[in-house]
Each structure stands twice: as C-alpha cells, then as structure tokens.
C-alpha cells in the first residue's frame, strides 16, 4: 500500500518526509562483535519484528502484513521483540564472524498491524572488522647490508646461509593477544622487494626472499614473532606487510613495515681514528724506517705495518683501499672498498680486513687509471651548503673533467648513496692526479665549523723563500731535485712561471669551487706553502714535499696528531727544524690542539711522487650519536 502510495507521491513529495512510524537505531556491525538494535514508537507490549535484507528498495509484501510492503530486498525476519511500557525494545546480538567482511545489510523494524503496520526507515550498513590495538610492529626498520664475512669462507655472508649471523636486524611483530577470540587463525607475511636482495628469517630459516618466497603464512600465536631482516645491498627500500587472517582467509587487520638499508658512508677526518696502517720495507725489500719510526713513536700500537715484501714493495696503501661504514640501527659494520688499481697491495684487503664484522666491496673492473686510486677519493667534514646540511660530509674526487675519470661503477655507486653527494675536481694538471696532493681537512674545535681546509699556496711559498737567506744550502734538494740553495730556487724563472700557471689555472679556481660546493668562507681555510715541478711531461708533482698530504691521527682518548712530510727547507737534514721557515709557518697555522709530527718521507715517498697520506691509511669510528635514520638532514638527502 505504502509502495503504491509512494509511487503516486514520488513526483511531488519526498517519501521520507512522509515519515516512518518507528525509529530504529543500529550500532556498528563488526564481525564477532555485539550489535544493538533499538526500536521506539511502538505501543507498549506490541510485538516488533526486525527484518534483515540485502539492501533497501521495493521489498516483499507478505500476507501477514495485510498487503503492506517492506522496504528492503531479500527480506528475512531476524527476530521479534516486545515493546516495553514506553513502546521501545532493543536487541543485542553478536555479529557472526562467518559473515563476509563488507557485506551490505539492510534492517527494518516492523510492528504488524496488518495494512496499518508500522515501519521504520531502513537502515543500510556494511559489516566491518574490529581493528586490533595489539597487532603491532615498528613502522620502519633500518639495517645495514650483510657485506662482511663472519663465517670466513671468503665470500660476503649474504651470498651464503648466515644462520646466527650478527648482521640481521631484529624485527619484532607483536600479535593481538586476543586474536583467537576475534577469529584470527594466522598471520600472512608479504615481502614487497624489487631489489631481490632482502631476506626475512624466522627461527633460523629463510622464510621470505627472492630465492624462497614473497609470501608466507604463520599459524596464529599470541607470542611475538621474532624476525630477522637481512639486506644484500645498500639503499634498499622494501616493505613487509603482516596481516591477520581468519579461517576464510579474510584480512582482519594489517601493519606494514618499511625495510630500509643504509647508504655506504666514507669516513672523514673529524671522526676519531682507531687504527692506522702502513707498509714496512725491511731487509731486501728496502728500508723505510725514516718514515715508519716517527709515526710509530707517535701512535704506538695503533699503527699496523704490512710487510712490504709480501705486497710487492707497494707502499701506496692509501691508494689501494678506502675505509667506510655500513651503519644500521643495531650495528656498525666496518667496510673497505678495494680499488681496481690492483698493484702489489691488491690482496691486502682480503688478507687483512675482509672477514668477521668487516665488509668489502669492489666497484669497477678492467684497466685502472691513476684516478681509480683512493688517494683520489676523500670526504669533507659535515658541511651546510645553501641551506642543505650534509651531516656525513661530502665526498670528492679528482678527474680530467670531461675526459678521464674514475671508473663509472664506483662514482655512480657513490652518487646513488646520496648522503655524501660526491663532486669532481679537476686534477688533470697533476702527474699523479689525486685530490690529496694539495688539500686536506683538519679538525679545529675552536672553529665555528669544527674544521679547517688545508690548502696549498704557491705565493706563500715564494714569500717565504724571498725572506730566506739565498745562500742557505738545501742538501736534500741537491740530490733529489738538483737544486743547491734557496737562491737557485728563487732564480728559476721557468719554475716560478710554471707555478703561477698552476695557481691561476688550477689552484685558485679549485678553491673557489670548494667554497661553493662546501659552503666555505675564507675564515675556514689555512694555507700551507707549496711549490710544484714538472714530474712527467708537463704534469706536476710536489717539489717541496707536499705538507697538505697529511694524516689526521685523532686517536680515541689521545692528543690528536697531524702527521706530515718534513719539507727540509733548511741547510741541515737532521731533526732540528727550528730554522726551517716552512716548518715554523705550518706549525703556526695548524690548530693548537694538534701535536705536529714531522716525517722524513723523502726517499721512499716524496721522490716517488707521494707523501705521508699516500703511504698510510686510517680506520675511523662513526660520529657518536649521529644516526642517519633519525637525523632529518640525512633522511632528506636520502629522500626518505
């Protein structure tokens, strides 16, 4: 009857405005949870039926209603209630867990009065699932690649089966302790990983990964699920979804964890040193005791010496290896990049470093140029440039820009790490071609930025020469460079012009570039005197031992030391440096917190186109308290 009436009135009146005689309220219908139906508007003691259907619409007109029609489709009677004295009735019942999640349910209350039956407006709702407060997991996990060799089998652990490996990052999933009551029968773990280099471990078994599965179900238990996450590479961002499933396989709740692996980070000079290494020549291999002794006196047990005879008399240990870190939220892993330079020291990284808690990697292959040596890869201290902060500093390397450069495999990889934003410097003018030949960084706790850039200054060198007595003999330079005295140094006009070209075409422009790339001002720079000579064809090398090619030996808990080449710009070749104006100048400009250690590197390094930094390498420790995964600047650089 109403339907017919609604049909007649539909053109000019909102049928809802006609009004329903009964009021019906329905609470949320959640699987496994109570739902309450409250009806009012009936007569006291009257029977009210609750009818359920699939949706609202033109429903059946049962004869018991005397021809009145329901407003729900596929109607069935849920229950009957008796209205109380106020004409109200309510019913609470648990929504069966077996109902489909999201199913549409329409409810209408009916008081049977035949043709005059009373109806409520249909309530249409859908069945939902109760969210669990208790299913939980961290939003993100930050690990480091399993790039070391804890089982000492000669290969990276990720390539093996690292049961018990200490490079897995813990991921604790806490299930809902009331999950069973809610119908949870299992948890489904789904790994979404494009890299194919993430493995998830449970109880010593690989349960997810490219070679196992991307999805696994684990029977429900209220006990925490202790997973281990293993990364095979840097800068992975994958996800692990954990779902609660009921017996029909429906998802009742889920959480997703971001799995993020660390970038590789090169070390910088403000990070404290823990160990230095050099190559010792003894016996038939030669004798570099003049180099070793002052360094060993200064560093003691913190200096390790590789046997030169074993490593082909290759003293350039700075060039063969580059130290770095893999830092995860649970662990710091030391790491060494092994150069493709592959000279006498080629096996050193495998022999002495790669192993337990020490990772190793090689980027590039084939013919190596001088630019592939690691004296050509350095890192600045933390800097801020045009509002962008680099908490781990910026990496830089030398190249003949546009022509010859380091192997793309390494430079591309370092660029992909993003956090140290590498940049190129023109070192085409140098015979060796390494950035460490003319610049470095030293800590300076009194400086606003915490460091100074050490830079080679040719004009300064000539100023000092001009102030010297021209008759001062230079015995070291006679035998090594054919220069007898200071006057001969000063009078060599071609040498002067050669150095002016270096200054004007290279050193000055590079300094301007550094200021731009690293946000430096003139106050951040200290200058060391230096003069270059043609070493091979027109290409330059240090004529006065390159003092900027220094080592920052800031060992933990000790007075920091700067190790650098003795310039021997004096008539005596002994250790009395008081009359050496190049020494006194450098000692006057270096930050006072450092102990200066002068090293005689003349025979075995300087004459072979290298200096103190070239002949050493330094293992450092990360900056305390600087976690890239919580540091906003770092996360910004990484795009996380």
């Amino acid at each position, binding site marked *: 009857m109403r339907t017919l009436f609604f049909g007649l009135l539909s053109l000019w009146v909102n049928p809802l405005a006609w009004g329903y005689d009964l009021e019906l309220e329905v609470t949320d219908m959640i699987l496994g949870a109570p739902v309450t139906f409250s009806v009012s508007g009936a007569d006291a003691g009257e029977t009210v039926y609750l009818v359920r259907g699939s949706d609202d619409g033109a429903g059946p007109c049962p004869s018991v209603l005397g021809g009145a029609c329901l407003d729900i489709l596929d109607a069935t009677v849920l229950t009957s209630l008796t209205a109380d004295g106020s004409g109200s009735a309510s019913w609470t019942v648990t929504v069966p867990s077996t109902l489909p999640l999201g199913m549409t349910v329409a409810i209408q209350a009916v008081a049977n009065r035949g043709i005059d039956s009373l109806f409520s407006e249909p309530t249409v709702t859908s069945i939902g699932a109760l969210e669990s407060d208790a299913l939980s997991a961290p939003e993100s996990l930050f690990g480091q690649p399993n790039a070391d060799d804890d089982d000492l089998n000669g290969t990276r652990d990720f390539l093996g089966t690292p049961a018990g490996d200490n490079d897995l990052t813990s991921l604790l999933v806490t299930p809902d302790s009331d999950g069973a009551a809610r119908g949870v029968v299992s948890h489904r773990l789904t790994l979404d990983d494009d890299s194919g280099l993430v493995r998830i471990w449970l109880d010593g078994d690989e349960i997810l990964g490219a070679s196992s599965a991307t999805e696994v179900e684990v029977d429900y238990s209220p006990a925490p699920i202790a997973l281990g996450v293993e990364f095979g590479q840097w800068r992975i961002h994958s996800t692990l979804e954990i779902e609660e499933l009921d017996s029909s396989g429906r998802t009742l709740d889920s959480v997703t964890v971001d799995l993020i692996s660390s970038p590789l980070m090169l070390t910088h000079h403000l990070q404290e040193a823990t160990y230095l290494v050099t190559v010792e020549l003894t016996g038939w291999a*030669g004798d570099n005791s003049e180099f070793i002794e002052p360094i060993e006196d200064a560093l003691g047990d913190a200096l390790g010496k590789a046997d030169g005879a074993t490593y082909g*008399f*290759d003293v*350039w240990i700075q*060039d063969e290896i580059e130290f770095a870190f893999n830092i995860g939220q649970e662990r710091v892993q030391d790491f060494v990049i092994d150069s493709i330079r592959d*000279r*006498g020291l080629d096996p050193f990284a495998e022999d002495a470093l790669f192993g337990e808690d020490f990772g190793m990697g090689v980027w590039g292959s084939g013919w190596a140029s*001088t630019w592939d*040596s690691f*004296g050509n890869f350095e890192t600045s201290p933390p800097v801020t440039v045009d509002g962008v902060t680099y908490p781990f500093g910026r990496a830089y390397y030398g190249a003949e820009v546009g022509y010859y450069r380091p192997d793309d495999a390494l430079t591309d990889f370092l660029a992909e790490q993003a956090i140290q934003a590498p940049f190129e410097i023109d070192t085409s003018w140098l*015979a*060796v*071609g*390494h950035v460490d030949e003319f610049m470095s960084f030293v800590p300076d706790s009194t400086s606003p930025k915490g460091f100074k850039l050490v830079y080679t200054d040719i004009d300064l060198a000539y100023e000092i020469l001009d102030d010297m007595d021209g008759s001062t003999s230079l015995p070291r330079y*006679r*035998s*090594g460079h*054919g220069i*007898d005295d200071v006057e001969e140094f000063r009078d060599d*006009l*071609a*040498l002067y*012009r*050669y150095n002016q*070209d270096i200054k*004007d*075409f290279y050193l000055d*422009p590079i300094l301007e570039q550094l200021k731009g790339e690293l946000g430096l001002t003139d106050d951040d720079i200290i200058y060391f005197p230096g003069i270059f000579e*043609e*070493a*091979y*064809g*027109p290409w330059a090398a240090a004529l006065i031992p390159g003092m900027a090619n220094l080592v920052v030996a800031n060992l933990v808990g000790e007075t920091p030391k700067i190790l650098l080449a003795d310039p021997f710009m004096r008539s005596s070749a002994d250790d009395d440096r008081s009359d050496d104006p190049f020494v006194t100048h450098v000692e006057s400009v270096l930050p006072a917190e450092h102990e200066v250690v002068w090293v005689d590197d003349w*025979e*075995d390094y300087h*004459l*072979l*186109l*290298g200096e103190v930094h*070239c002949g050493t390498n330094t293992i450092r420790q990360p900056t305390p308290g600087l976690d890239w995964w919580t540091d906003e600047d770092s996360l910004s650089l990484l795009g996380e």
Partner: protein
Amino acid sequence: MRTLMLTGFFIANTSWASEATDRAESALATLDAATLTHLESVQPRATRAGWLRIVDDTVVSESGAPWLIHQLATHADAHPSVRVAWADAMVRAVRSDADAFGWGDAWVELAATDGDSKVRAMLLAGLRHGDASFAIPALKQGLTHEDPATRAAAADGLAWHPQGLMAAEALRQSLADQDVEVRRMAATAVGYLGDTEAFNDLVTLLDDVDPLVRATAIRSLERVAPERARALPQMQDLAQDTHTQIQRAASHLLNSGS
C-alpha cells in the same frame, strides 16, 4: 768541436752510438766491483703514478751516469718502463752539473736516437739542465723530429732552459706545428722565455682549434707583451669564452692591468 761531432752523429749515428757506449764502458771499468754490483742490483721502484723511478743515491749520481748511459745504449730490449726510469735517473744524475759530468754528448745523442719515444722525451726535457753549448742545439734539433712527442718534449726543455731564447726562431716555427701538444708546449715556451717577437704568432693561435692551445697563447701573450695583449680586440670576448681556461686566462690578462 762538439757541435761538429753532434752533426756528424745525426748523419751516421751507429758509429757514434758505439763511441758513447765505449766511453761509458771505459768509465764503468774504473768503478770498484762493489759499486758495480750495487748499480746492477738496484731495481726501479713504482711511483705513486705507476711508472718506474730509480731513487738510489749511487745510481743517481756522477758515478752512476755512465752505467745509465751504457744501459740505455746497449739494452734496447729492456722493458720500456725500465728504460724510461734509466733515462729519468740519468737526467737527475747529471743535472746538478751543467756539463753533465762530461756526458753531455752522450745525453744529446741518446735523446736524438733512442728508439723509444718516451725515453727521448725524458732525455730531451731533461736537457733544460744542460749547458747551452750542447743542450740548445739538441733541443732545436728535437723540434724537428718526426715524432710529435719528441718535438713537444724539446719545446718543454727549451721552455725551462735559462738560454732557451737561443732557439726562439725554431720555437716560433713550432707554434705552427701540426701537432696540438707541440703547439701548446711551444706557446708555453715562448711565454716562459718572454719572446716578444712571438707576439703575432701567438695571436694567430687565438684561433687554434684546440682550447688549451688558445688558453696557453693568451697566457703567453700576457707574459711577452701584456699591454699589447690587453688591447687586442678579441680579448674581451675571450674573457667570456665558454671554455673555462680560456676565460680564466683572458680575465687574468685583462684584470692584471687594472
């Protein structure tokens, strides 16, 4: 007399080479056995750049010079990098004496006739330390060698020689060499030597196909005649050149007069 000898050698070098070798052998025969054994035992060492160098005080000395000459003259089949190390050591051994301890003629001849371009280049460039009487003619001759690397090394040697201007005309001719590196070294040389007569030839190089030659020409123009160079009409444009080194050289020239 020495010049005549050198000229004769260029015409028929085999006889001269054996004369140099004979002289070196004779000198070696005067050394004691221990010294000779030591010279024979010294191995070149790898520089940081990878090429070899001898740093032994006995080898790189007056007594070592004849041994090095002998090695270069009689061991053409030794490894090329070792021979370059011998040449480098020889230059360093004799350069503290302008007369090269009497080995100037051998030095010059090896520089002209050695079969290895890098050895010739090392010896020629090293003639910057030699007495002008033998060094300048040899370097001038080197400027006409068929090998461009040798010619470039000769220009380099002249650039650094205190009497390099004695070869000024030859250097100016080299400014038109067909090889880029030779032109660049020659341009450097005339600048270092302050050869004012090279001005017009350097101006011609401002249109060279190679940017480093152009930059070097600007630099040398500043050295030989800065005021005339600053007045060149193209210099303002060169200060805005897209190539960084040309821009720097021109800017430096223009600013140095202010």
